C-alpha cells in the first residue's frame, strides 16, 4: 500500500468537501440518424464514504454517465462537455494518457457482466494483478501476494489455489467477486459499480452488496451504484439520482426520495414495482408508453408523453417549456438538497402524493 492518503479519514466523512463533482455533464453521440443526447446536463456531488445510487430504465443514460466519469469516451466520436471534478481535478479535458493514470488507480469500475469483462485466455490472478503492476512500482511476486490478499478479502475460498484458474472455472458470483477484487486492488477513492448485481441471484446479490459496503467503510471510498432496482438503492445508498431521458429528474437523500417522492416518473417507478413486503390489493400501475427517443427528445418536459399529471399544469407548460431541476419545499438535508424537475408546484405535488399515489403503493 503505497498510498498513504487513504489512512486519513474514518470519522471525518460528514464535514468534507465533495470528492466528486459532476457539473452540467453532457455526452452526445453523433450518428447517421441525428445527435443522440445520452446525458444532457447532469449534475451531482459526492463525498468520500458516501454511496450514490443512479436509478433509471434502460436508455436513461446511467451507464453512459459512468463511462464518462471513467473517461471511456475519449478517442471516440462522443462529444463530452461540462466538468467532472475528481478531488478538484477536472477529468474532462485530460488526455487518454493522463486519464490512464487515474483510471484503475483512483477511480475504478465494476461492470455488469463479469463473464464478458474478464478475458477468457488469461488466468484470474493474472488479470487482477495487472492493474496493480501498472499503477505501482512492485515486482510480480508482490503483486501476486497482493492479489491473493484481495481474493481472500472478497471471499474466494482457497484464494492462493485459485490464482491460476481461468474465468470459466469460476461461478457467476465468484466472477463478480473477482471483478470487485480487480476494481479494488489499487484502493480506489471512487468506485463505480454499473449494475453490479443484476446478473446475480438474490443470495449472491446480498453478499456482493454487503461486500461493497464493507469496503466502503474500510477504504472510505466514494461509491456510485448504477441500478434499476429501487430495492438495492434503499438497501445501500445514501443519496439517489433518478434519471430519465438523459436528465436527472429527481434527486435527494435516500430517505427523502422514498418517503416523499415528488416527480411523477419516480411515482411511476414505485407504482410499477410489485412489493415483497406486502400484498398489493390493487393492480400495478405501470407507466404507459415506452422510454423516449434520445434523438428527438420530447419538447418541454422530457417525461410529458407518459405523464398522467400534465393536465394539472396550466397553459400546457409541460409541452412547451423545459422544467428546471429545482429544490422542493421541506428539503431537510443541507448537503443533498431534494430537487425535482417538474412544473407542478411543490405543495400540489405533495398533495397528489398523499391523496393519489401513496394509497396505491
Amino acid at each position, binding site marked *: 500500500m503505497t498510498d498513504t492518503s487513504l489512512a486519513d479519514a474514518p470519522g471525518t466523512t460528514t464535514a468534507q468537501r465533495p470528492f466528486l463533482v459532476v457539473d452540467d455533464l453532457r455526452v452526445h453521440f453523433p450518428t447517421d440518424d441525428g445527435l443522440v443526447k445520452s446525458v444532457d446536463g447532469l449534475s451531482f456531488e459526492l463525498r468520500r464514504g458516501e454511496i450514490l445510487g443512479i436509478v433509471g430504465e*434502460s436508455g436513461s443514460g446511467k451507464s453512459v454517465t459512468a463511462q464518462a466519469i471513467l473517461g471511456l469516451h475519449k478517442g471516440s466520436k462522443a462529444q463530452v462537455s461540462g466538468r467532472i471534478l475528481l478531488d478538484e481535478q477536472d477529468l474532462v479535458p485530460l488526455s487518454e494518457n493522463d486519464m490512464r493514470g487515474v483510471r484503475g488507480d483512483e477511480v475504478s469500475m465494476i461492470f455488469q457482466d463479469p463473464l464478458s469483462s474478464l478475458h477468457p485466455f488469461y488466468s484470474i490472478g493474472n488479470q487482477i494483478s495487472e492493474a496493480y503492476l501498472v499503477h505501482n512500482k512492485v515486482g510480480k511476486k508482490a503483486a501476486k501476494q497482493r492479489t491473493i490478499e484481495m481474493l481472500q478479502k472478497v471471499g474466494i475460498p482457497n484464494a492462493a489455489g485459485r490464482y491460476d484458474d481461468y474465468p470459466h472455472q469460476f461461478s457467476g458470483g465468484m466472477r463478480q467477486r473477482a471483478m470487485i477484487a480487480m476494481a479494488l486492488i489499487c484502493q480506489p477513492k471512487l468506485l463505480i459499480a454499473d449494475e453490479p448485481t443484476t446478473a446475480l441471484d438474490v443470495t449472491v446479490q446480498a453478499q456482493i452488496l454487503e461486500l461493497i459496503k464493507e469496503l466502503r467503510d474500510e477504504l472510505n471510498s466514494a461509491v456510485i451504484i448504477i441500478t434499476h432496482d429501487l430495492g438495492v438503492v434503499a438497501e445501500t445508498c445514501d443519496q439517489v439520482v433518478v434519471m430519465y431521458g438523459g436528465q436527472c429528474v429527481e434527486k435527494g437523500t*435516500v430517505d427523502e426520495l422514498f418517503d416523499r417522492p415528488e416527480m411523477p416518473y419516480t411515482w411511476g417507478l414505485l407504482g410499477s414495482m*410489485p412489493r415483497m413486503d406486502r400484498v398489493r390489493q390493487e393492480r400495478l400501475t405501470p*407507466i404507459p408508453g415506452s422510454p423516449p427517443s434520445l434523438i428527438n427528445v420530447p419538447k418541454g418536459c422530457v417525461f410529458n408523453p407518459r405523464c398522467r399529471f400534465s393536465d394539472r399544469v396550466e397553459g400546457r407548460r409541460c409541452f412547451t417549456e423545459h422544467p428546471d431541476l429545482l429544490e422542493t419545499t421541506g428539503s431537510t438535508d443541507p448537503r443533498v438538497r431534494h430537487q425535482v424537475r417538474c412544473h407542478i408546484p411543490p405543495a400540489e405535488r405533495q398533495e397528489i402524493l398523499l391523496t393519489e399515489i401513496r394509497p396505491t403503493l
Partner: protein
Amino acid sequence: MTTTAPQPAASGTRSTEKLLEVEGVQKWFPGRRGGLFGQKGNPVRAVDGVTFSLGAGETLGLVGESGCGKSTTGRAVSKLIEPTGGTVRFEGRDVTKLSPRQMRPLRRELQMIFQDPYSSLNPRHTIGTIVGSPFRIQGEKPKGGVKKTVQDLMARVGLNPEHYNRYPHEFSGGQRQRIGIARALALQPKLIVCDEPVSALDVSVQAQVVNLLEDLQSEFGLAYIFIAHDLSVVRHISDRVAVMYLGKIMELTDRDTLYENPMHPYTHALLSAVPVPDPKIEARREKILLTGDLPSPSNPPSGCVFHTRCPKYKNELSESEREHCRTVEPVLEEKTPGHEVYCHFPQVRSDLVVGEPVTGQIRTTKPKVA
C-alpha cells in the same frame, strides 16, 4: 398418489379434478465424461423428484436461484423435454409417456411463454405468421379466418393489429413479450407455463405485462406456472409458491404463508436477501447470508441437499441433529395444513420480509429424530 383419488378419467367431470398433477418428476441429464478417456460421469440431476399439483385457474409460482431446476421443471411438465422419471397427469390423463405426435392435440391446452423475447420469435416470420402458427399446426380454421382472429388476439394483448405484417425486430422487448403471449393464447389453452416472462423487461414495462397476464387469467380462466427468480413479482402474481433448490422443492405453500411464515432455512435466506424499496424497513431487516457456492447437481450432498449451506445446520443444531441432516434425506411433507416443507428442523420466521414479526408468534416444530 392416494390423496385425491381421482375419478376414472371420464371427460366432462373434471371440475373437481386437478388440472395438472406432477408426481416425483425427475430429469437427469447424462453426465459428461471426465476427460478424453474418462468414464461416463454422474448424471446431472437437474430435477430430482418434484411433486405438486395445480387447479384450474390457479397460479403456482416456482422460485429459486439459477441452476435450481425451475426452468427444467417447467419444460419437463410441459413435455418440451422428456422427464426421466415420475408422472405428469394433465386433466387426469397420464401424459408422461406420450410421444410428440400424441402430445400434439394436448398442446392446445398447454402452452408456454419464454423468457427471452428476442430468441423465442423467428426473425424471418411476420407477427401474423408467428401468432397464427398454432392454428396452422393444429389444422384449425377459426371462425372469421386466421387473420381476423390473430388481429383480435393482437388487440387483446395491447398490440396494434395493423402491425400484422411487421417483423419481430421492429418491436421493443415489451411488445415482443406481448407477441409471445398472443401466440400462447391463440388456441385458448388451460395452462400456460411462463418461464421468466418479465425478467428481461424494464420495471415499468414489466408492470404492463404482469397486469396483462392477470387480466387474461381472469378473462379466460387460465392456470399459470409462473417461473421466476424475482420474489416480489412472484408474491404479486401467485396463489401458491414452490421454492426450489438443487432440483427439489424445499417449501410449498400458499403465497401469504410463504412470505409471512416461511419455515425452511433456505426460504429464510432467500427472503432476507431480497431488498425492499423502503429504507426504513431495510434498516431493520436481518440479512441471512449464505456461504459457499451451490453444490454440483451431478454430485448432490448426502442427506438434506441444503445442509452444506444451511445457516441453521451450521449455527444452531447439535452434533446429533447435524448427523441426522447429513445422513437422512428429509421429504417434502405437510408440517402444518397446506404447508409442505423439506426439512428436519423447520421453524417459522415471520420477521424476515418486513423486519418485524408479522403475527408475533414464533412456533418451533419439534423434530422427529429417530
